[in-house]
């Protein structure tokens, strides 16, 4: 419960903070709370991978780009406030619709006894037996993304 409240508050901090670096730090806090939820649901491997990939790699990439661009100051013009209100209202309307649609759904309660399905041993068996082909395709995706990033980012 505490984790969820922290997650929601820091997610709001991502959206509402004026300084982009503050947004990045709030997003890192959100990612750590989500990793805490993963651990609570016995998905230890995913929690570790989540922290390494998101907090360790992606957020560092974001921070590097922010520092390279020197965007610490707020560059957003303050005109067109009605667009902000329209965005907030439509996001809130989506929230209301989804909550109203799923409020009466009957779902079983999650048991607190641990499952070993999220351990790296079992997930590795599934990954390398059942999902070998998507795994290899993802390596090609990474290679092409790396080449694409270098090609786009290089100075001509």
């Amino acid at each position, binding site marked *: 419960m505490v984790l969820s409240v922290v997650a929601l508050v820091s997610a709001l901090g991502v959206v509402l903070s004026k300084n982009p670096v503050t947004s990045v730090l709030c997003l890192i806090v*959100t990612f750590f709370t989500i990793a805490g939820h993963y651990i609570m649901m016995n998905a230890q491997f995913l929690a570790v991978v989540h922290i390494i990939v998101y907090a360790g790699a992606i957020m560092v990439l974001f921070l590097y780009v922010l520092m390279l661009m020197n965007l610490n100051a707020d560059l957003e013009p303050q005109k067109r406030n009605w667009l902000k209100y329209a965005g907030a209202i439509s996001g809130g309307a989506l*929230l209301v619709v989804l909550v109203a649609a799923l409020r009466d759904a009957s779902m079983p309660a999650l048991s607190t006894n641990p499952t070993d399905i999220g351990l790296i041993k079992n997930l590795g068996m599934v990954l390398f037996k059942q999902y070998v082909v998507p795994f290899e395709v993802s390596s090609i995706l990474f290679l092409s*993304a790396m080449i694409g990033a270098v090609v786009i980012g290089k100075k001509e």
Partner: protein
Amino acid sequence: MPVQYYIFLSIALFCIGVMGVLMRRNAIIIFMCIELMLNAVNLLMVSFSKMWADAGRVDAGSAQLFVFFIMVVAAAEVAVGLAIITMVYRNTHSVDINILNRLKN
């Protein structure tokens, strides 16, 4: 702990991400909100995986592997997207998406 709790938490995180995409004009913050939305979906999928594991299904690990692949795609997407943002900043000296409404010049 009922699984609705996780559904509503995911919905709230996803809607905060949607609000961020709609409200903010900074391209980097829009990217971060997209990451937030992906993570809301990941959280939901892990909770459903736990639900299925509690129900005794043997293939509940597939959902967690799907989350793993979503992380892979998100990492690749961030690499390319930040390269594009850097390129845009180099050309226009701004990351305001209102400038990008015309891609030519």
